[in-house]
């Protein structure tokens, strides 16, 4: 069974981004970039399925600029077998990425696509669901436990009230939540090995996909600032403030 894992290059989760003063976007020049943390969990899960003998091949895919090759190498250092870069400088929105992934699914024929539930830059939380819809496949989003067997996926999902377990026919799309697994650290030998793994490059044109954006960002602004309030000395003073100043209790 082949598993496809899309990975996105994003601003590292430890970086607090700054809005550009001209309001055109956030400043990502000279900022540390990493693999989207949810995608890292997706790669780890796929690799564990391969190690367990369930999957036979793990293919990492990234869509975007040439530097996404680093993200693919990082996925291969965790254990993905090969990488595919869909190389484009165009702004990619989730629908466009879902269409690119659809074209790759038709080409590669995976039994499962495991992806992060959301990217921590645009916080869209759409691509996996969109891909599933375009393929006519079932989906299990926000997964905290995944088992694949006998042409079926059994997935436990984190939902607002707790957990639910779904059974899906394969092929299917699964999106990862935080507690699915803890990704391993790539070891130096595996990082070296990853450099030698195959990495193919394609373009949206070659896949026959129109990636034109549907949404235009008119401006990007700082959120309303919340200023630090005051320190209180003890519980009595806190009670006084909550009762008499804030009037919330």
């Amino acid at each position, binding site marked *: 069974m082949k598993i496809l894992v899309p990975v996105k290059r994003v601003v590292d989760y430890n970086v*607090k*981004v700054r809005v550009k003063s001209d309001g055109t976007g*956030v400043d990502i020049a000279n900022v540390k970039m990493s693999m989207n943390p949810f995608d890292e969990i997706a790669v780890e899960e796929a690799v564990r399925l391969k190690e367990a003998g369930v999957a036979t091949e793990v293919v990492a895919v990234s869509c975007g600029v040439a530097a996404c090759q680093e993200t693919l190498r990082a996925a291969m250092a965790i254990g993905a077998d090969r990488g595919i870069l869909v190389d484009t400088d165009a702004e990619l929105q*989730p*629908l466009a990425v879902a269409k690119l992934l659809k074209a790759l699914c038709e080409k590669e024929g995976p039994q499962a696509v495991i992806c992060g*539930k*959301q990217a921590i*830059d645009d*916080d869209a*939380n*759409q691509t*996996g*669901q*969109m891909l*599933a*819809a*375009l393929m006519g496949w*079932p*989906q*299990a*989003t*926000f997964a905290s436990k995944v088992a694949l067997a006998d042409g079926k996926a059994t997935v436990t999902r*984190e*939902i*607002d*009230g*707790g*957990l*639910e*377990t*779904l*059974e*899906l026919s394969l092929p299917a799309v699964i999106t990862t*939540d*935080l*507690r699915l697994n803890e990704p391993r650290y790539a070891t130096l030998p595996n990082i070296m090995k990853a450099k030698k793994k195959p990495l193919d490059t394609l373009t949206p044109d070659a896949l026959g996909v129109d990636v034109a954006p*549907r*949404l*235009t960002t*008119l*401006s*990007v*602004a*700082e*959120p309303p600032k*919340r200023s*630090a*309030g*005051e*320190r*209180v000395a*003890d*519980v*009595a003073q*806190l009670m006084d*403030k*909550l009762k008499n100043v*804030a009037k*919330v*209790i």
Partner: protein
Amino acid sequence: MAILVLAEHDNASLKAATLNTVAAAQKIGGDIHVLVAGNGCDAACAAAAALTGVSKVLCAAAPHYEAQLAENLAALVVAHAAGYTHILAPATSLGKNVLPRVAALLDVAQISDIVAVEAADTFVRPIYAGNAMAKVKSADAVKVITVRTTAFEAVGSGGSAPVEAIAAAADLGLSKLVGRELTKSERPELGAAKVIVSGGRGLGSGENYHALLEPLADKLGAALGASRAAVDAGYVPNDYQVGQTGKIVAPQLYIAVGISGAIQHLAGMKDSKVIVAINKDPEAPIFQVADYGLVADLFQVVPELTAALG
């Protein structure tokens, strides 16, 4: 303009998130229809029909809508999408699951998690864990939108819109529900609570979390929340998590106990009206957003606070 709102419900009642979503639809303006898809969902339909601003309720009742599976719900919405300029759902685990499927099937973009309506085609949404607010304009004929519920005040009820039964779409049979483990609680729902008591890794264990925070929450009639660290450490179940990828909350009062305040956590609670932080580390980032900060040993002051509330 005509707007279709996908209701979130449990057949017997409407979830509060639907009320905020109808409020967002009112900001867009136009005829508002609410789609209730379920099984034996007459009570939920009646509740939707009573909401202020709703002009019609569409009721699709069939066994294959019982579990609210994304594949079947999306197909139903798409089958009835003709004539609507906007399709809305709350940005809850249901809306986030179903609506991107609807958008892809209609070949349009989705606008996720809007916090403001600027015009019928222009919306504001947070990006980068709420560290930036993007104003985006959609060029699509149909705007498919999820709504951040805390940004829109719930509509009231008192209306009496007609309820129209609509045909169910075919059962796609792609997935099935095996079971649910829902957290049982007498407390208010985290997303709609007026007061939230939230705990982090500073509590040290699940036993401490419950022993210290439950009595305080009882006194305040509060919901209980947690940081990712506390959930990862197994103190409490996943649905307690407040943050960028957990629940987004905006209560009147948020009391953060032993939470350091990672940006991902702040993203989920910084719109609260009043924030109280209790932490022994004076440098903890949580103090940068707190209205009232108490630098102290939580094991000492939390019981004191509980006692002071009488």
